């Protein structure tokens, strides 16, 4: 079971974790000086950790789906603090914040009510 701050936010439906690009952050001199003729890049530290969860929330009714969605969105707000994110296989990332929650489209109302989404987590140096 995946968890964020000990809460099962995504367990109602299928979901998978992806660790986004890692490594050094390259910045071009042209970008920071505003002079496009300036060649070259320099290393500006390392990229911040980003982990995305892509999946689908599933519920028997519309109201239940909104409860799930609202619980996730509450974690993505700026007032919400950091916590530990754990994937379904026990891999953990400490002190991460949920950065955003984005629905993939409208709610699907088939046999069940469901909503595809991407939730982004990361270490934010503030």
């Amino acid at each position, binding site marked *: 079971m995946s968890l964020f701050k000990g809460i099962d936010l995504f367990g109602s*439906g299928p979901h*998978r974790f992806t660790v986004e690009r890692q490594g050094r952050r390259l910045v071009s001199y042209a970008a920071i000086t505003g002079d496009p003729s300036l060649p070259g890049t320099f290393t500006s530290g390392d990229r911040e950790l980003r982990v995305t969860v892509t999946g689908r929330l599933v519920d028997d009714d519309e109201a239940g789906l909104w409860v799930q969605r609202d619980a996730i969105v509450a974690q993505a707000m700026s007032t919400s603090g950091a916590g530990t994110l754990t*994937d379904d296989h026990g891999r953990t990332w400490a002190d991460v914040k949920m950065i955003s929650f984005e629905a993939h489209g409208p709610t699907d109302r088939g046999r069940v009510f*469901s909503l595809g989404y991407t939730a982004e987590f990361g270490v934010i140096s503030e």
Partner: protein
Amino acid sequence: MVVMRPSEVRFGSDVWEGVERVAIDRTGARVIRGWGAGGPALVFADVGSYQVRAQVWQALDRTTLGGPIPGELEGVRIDLDAGTDVGRRRVRFDAVVESVSHEVSGSRAVRVISLIAVSGAGDEDPVQVASVS
């Protein structure tokens, strides 16, 4: 759903003579598939949207200059006689004409009318089947 030799088929106020059969197919227009983190097998499937399409085969035995026009929306009523396998039944749905084509072979001509059934609010299957006493 297949209706063989209906006793009467109406499209709005028009009676379509010589209908040999009507096939009603349901096809998923938005099929949702979900895989989890556990392995390669699919763990979730649903159909978020589907379409009901009816095809009507109408035998024509004379020159026919009219016919339904694509885009027309009317109520369809298909009546089955008591002598059929399922008894006296009526199938109803609202439908838009998708296409009208003809299969001509020798002296035989069959008009094939393709219909797309529509539901009022989308929360019910557009096709209703009722017993008729």
